[in-house]
C-alpha cells in the first residue's frame, strides 16, 4: 500500500510530530541524563563528560559540509554502526558527533575517520573555529546575493588549521547568510559573511500584475521607496510600481514579496563582512555583528578577497586578544578605530549607521584614539 492519489484523505496521518528523542540515545546517555558532573576537551574535537555515576562518554566531533548526499549520510551510519552501536547526533553548527562509552574506543574511531579521506575532519571544539553555519546560496535559493557552500568550502580550506586546533583566544563563530534575510544567526557572529545586493530591483511590468498584489509590493519597502506607477505594456496602460533608487537600500524585501522585482546582478552582488557579534551571555551581554567591509566581489570559485579578509581579521585577533576574549570584546577593548588599523581594513562611510537606531552608534564623547585615519588632522 502507499499513497493513493484518487483517495488522498484515505488513511492519511498527520500531526505526528518528531520522533521522541529518547529512543535515539546511546545507552550511556540514556543512563546518565541529568547526572553529568563536568567535562573536558582531551584534544581538539574530542570531549569527555563525566557522570556522577562514574560513567564517562567520549565524543568525537566531525566537520560536515551540511549539504550532503544520501551516500554521505549512509557512510555516517556505517561509522556509527561500527563504533557507536548505531548512534550519532548532529550539532547546532552542523557538525556530527560520535559517542563512545570508553576511552579505548576513541582511537579506533579516530583512525577510521582519518582513513576516509577529507570527509570527516575532527575538530571544532574549544578556542578554535568551528563549522560555518550557512544558508543555501546558489545551490537552492531564489534570493541569494552569493553562494553559500562554495564560499564556506573556500574559507574553511584556508582556516582548516583553526578547526583542528584550539589556538585562538576564544571560540570564533563564523556564519554565512547569502542575503539580508539571514537564515541563521549571522547578526550575532564573531565573523559574519553576508551576501549583499547593490542594485535596485528591476520592474517586470509585463508580469507584475499577474504575480503579485501591488499594495503588498508597495508596503514591503521599509523605507517607502516603492511607489504606485503606470506603464504602457503592449500599447495598454497598466498599473505597476516604481522604485525611488535614492531611498533603496537593496534589502530585497520587495522581491521576496513580488517576483516581478528581481534585483540580483553579477556585478552588483557580493559579500559584506561583519564582525564582533556573540550570542553567549558569558562575561558581556550578546552583541550584534558590525559591518566592517561593505563589499567584496563574487570571485568564483574561491572568493579570494573574502578568504583573505577573514584570515586577516582572524590572525589579527589571534595575535592581539586576551585569553577568553571574543572578537567583539577585543575590538571594543582596543577601540574600533584600532580594530580597523590593526586589521588594515580601510574605513568607509558605509560602516557608519544611517538606519533607524543610528544615533546610538555616533561617538558622543571626546574619547578616541589617534590612528592612521586621523593622521591628516594631527600632522
Amino acid at each position, binding site marked *: *500500500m*502507499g*499513497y493513493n492519489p484518487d483517495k488522498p*484523505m484515505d488513511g*492519511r496521518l498527520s500531526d*505526528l*510530530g*518528531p520522533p*521522541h*528523542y529518547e529512543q535515539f*540515545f546511546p545507552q550511556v*546517555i540514556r543512563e546518565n541524563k541529568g547526572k*553529568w*558532573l563536568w*567535562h*573536558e576537551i582531551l*584534544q581538539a574535537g574530542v570531549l569527555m*563528560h563525566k557522570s556522577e555515576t562514574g560513567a564517562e*562518554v567520549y*565524543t568525537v566531533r566531525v*566537520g560536515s559540509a551540511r*549539504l*550532503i*548526499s*544520501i551516500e*554521505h549520510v*549512509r557512510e555516517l*551510519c556505517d561509522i*556509527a554502526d561500527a563504533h557507536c552501536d*548505531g*548512534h*550519532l*547526533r548532529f550539532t*547546532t553548527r*552542523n557538525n556530527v558527533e560520535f559517542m563512545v562509552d570508553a576511552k579505548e574506543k576513541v582511537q579506533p574511531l579516530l583512525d577510521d575517520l582519518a582513513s576516509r579521506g577529507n570527509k570527516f*575532519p575532527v575538530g571544532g571544539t*574549544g*578556542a578554535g573555529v568551528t563549522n560555518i553555519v550557512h544558508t*543555501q546560496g*546558489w*545551490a*537552492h535559493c531564489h*534570493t541569494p546575493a552569493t*553562494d553559500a557552500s562554495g564560499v564556506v*568550502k*573556500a574559507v574553511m580550506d584556508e582556516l*582548516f588549521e583553526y*578547526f583542528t586546533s584550539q*589556538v585562538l583566544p576564544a571560540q570564533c563563530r563564523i556564519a554565512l547568510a547569502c542575503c539580508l534575510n*539571514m537564515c541563521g544567526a549571522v*547578526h*550575532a557572529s564573531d565573523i559574519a559573511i553576508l551576501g549583499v545586493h547593490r542594485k535596485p530591483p528591476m520592474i517586470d511590468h509585463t508580469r507584475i500584475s499577474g504575480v503579485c498584489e501591488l499594495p503588498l509590493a508597495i508596503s514591503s519597502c521599509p523605507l517607502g521607496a516603492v511607489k504606485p506607477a503606470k506603464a504602457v505594456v503592449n500599447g495598454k496602460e497598466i498599473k505597476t510600481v516604481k522604485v525611488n533608487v535614492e531611498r533603496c537600500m537593496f534589502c530585497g524585501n520587495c522581491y521576496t514579496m513580488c*517576483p516581478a522585482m528581481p534585483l540580483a546582478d*553579477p556585478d552588483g552582488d557580493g559579500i559584506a563582512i561583519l564582525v564582533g557579534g556573540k550570542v*553567549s*551571555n*558569558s562575561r558581556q551581554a550578546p552583541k550584534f555583528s558590525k559591518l566592517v567591509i561593505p563589499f567584496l566581489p563574487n570571485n*568564483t*570559485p574561491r572568493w579570494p578577497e573574502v578568504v583573505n579578509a577573514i584570515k586577516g581579521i582572524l590572525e589579527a585577533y589571534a595575535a592581539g586578544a586576551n585569553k577568553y576574549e571574543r572578537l567583539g570584546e577585543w575590538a571594543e577593548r582596543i577601540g574600533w578605530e584600532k580594530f580597523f588599523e590593526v586589521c588594515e581594513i580601510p574605513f568607509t562611510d558605509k560602516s557608519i549607521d544611517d538606519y*533607524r537606531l543610528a544615533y546610538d552608534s555616533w561617538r558622543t564623547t571626546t574619547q578616541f584614539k589617534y590612528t592612521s585615519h586621523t593622521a591628516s588632522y594631527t600632522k
Partner: protein
Amino acid sequence: MAKHETPLLDQLESGPWPSFVTDIKRQAEKKPECWDILGILELSFKERITHWKHGGIVGVFGYGGGIVGRYADVPERFPGVEHFHTIRVAQPSSKYYTSKNLRQLMNLWEKHGSGMTNFHGSTGDVILLGTRTENLEPFFWDLTHEMGQDLGGSGSNLRTPACCLGTSRCEWACYDTQEACHSLTMHYQDEIHRPAFPYKFKFKFSGCPNDCVAAIARSDVAVIGTWKDDIRIDQAAVKGYMANEFPANGGAFIGREWDAFDIQKEVIDLCPTNCMWMEDGELKIDDAECTRCMHCINVMPRALRPGAQGGASICVGAKAPILDGAQFATLILPFIPVTKDNDFEELIEFIESIWDWWMEIGKNRERVGETMQRVGLPTFLRAVGVEALPQHVKYPRENPYVFWNEEEVEGGFERDVQEFRARHAA
C-alpha cells in the same frame, strides 16, 4: 559520467575541508539528476547569479507549511532540477539519531527525491533538498506511515522548535531542554502545520546562559536556563585548578601555550559584576550580585556548577534584520520553573498570552519583536500581564516622554478652557 562540464566547481574538490562537489558527484553516479544540480550551480558560478526562481505554493494536503517550492529558471537546460522543492522533516530534540532511522529516511529520499540533503536547516529541521511536486504526497505518505514521522514548519506559523542537548550530555543545563522542546512541539502540532499567525514564530530552548542554540538571537520565545539559588562550589577542585591539575575552560585552550592558570586574572577579574574573591584559600561568591553569566563556571567546570534550583529566563522577540533591523530577545520573565511535572504550565500560559495579543494586533509579516517595538515595551507588558521590572531594561528611560493614562492623573484629562481663562487672561 558527468553530464555537464563543471570546471569552476571542480576547483572546490581540492583542499582539506569536505567537498560538497565531490559528494554530489558521488551521489550523481546513483541519482543522475544530481548532474543537473552541479550543472545549474556551475552556471551560477560562471554568471555569478542564482538560477532559482520564486517557489509558488506547493505542499501536502491539510498543511500550510513544511514544503518550500523551488523551480529552475533554465529548466530546459537542467530538466533534472526543473522542480526542486525542499521538504522540511521535523528533527528529534537535540538531533540524536540511530543509523536505522537515518537509513530509513535516506531510503525514502532515494525513492522520492534528488539524493541531496542538509543536516540540518537553520531552524533545525532535516532538509531534504529537491523533489518534484508529484512526489510530495507519496513521500509524505511514506514518512508518516512507514516511519511515523512528520514535516516541520514553514510560513507564518510556529516554526519547528529546537533545543540544545541539555541534560542529556551537559552538566550545565538548568532544565530539561529536550523534554520541553519535544513536549511543546507535540502540544503545538496544529500551530506548526497550519499558518494562523501574522508571521513566523520560533521557540528555542537553551539549557544555560551560554545559549548554544542562539535562542536569544533567533527566537520569538527564548527559553534560557538559569537558576535562583547559589553557584555550587567544590573548593577542593578550585584548589586543583589553582595547582594546574585540571585544564582551564574544560580544555578549550589545549594546543596553545598560555601562561599558567591564574584564578585572579582568568576568573575573578573577568567576572562582570566583581562578585568573587579569594579568602583563606577559598573562592567566595556573593551570589546576590551574580548575574549568572557562566564565565566562572565555564572556566572551572569541575569546581563550579549552576545552582541546584533550576528554571529558565524567558526572553521575547528576537529576529534577523529584515525589516526594522535585527533584535535580540528581551528579558520578560526573570525566572520560571520549566518542568514536565505540571506539563510546562507556566511556559504554555505565557506563550499563549503572547499569541492571543499578537494574533489580534500584529500586522501582516510583522515578527512579535517588531510588534513589541511598535507598541512599546510597557504596553506589551500590560498585554501579557507582566508587572514592569527594572530587570526588563538595561537602564531606565533617557527621555522625559511618559505616556500617562487619564486614570493615573488626579482629576482626569477633561478641563474647561473657559474656567481656565477666567483665572488666566489670554
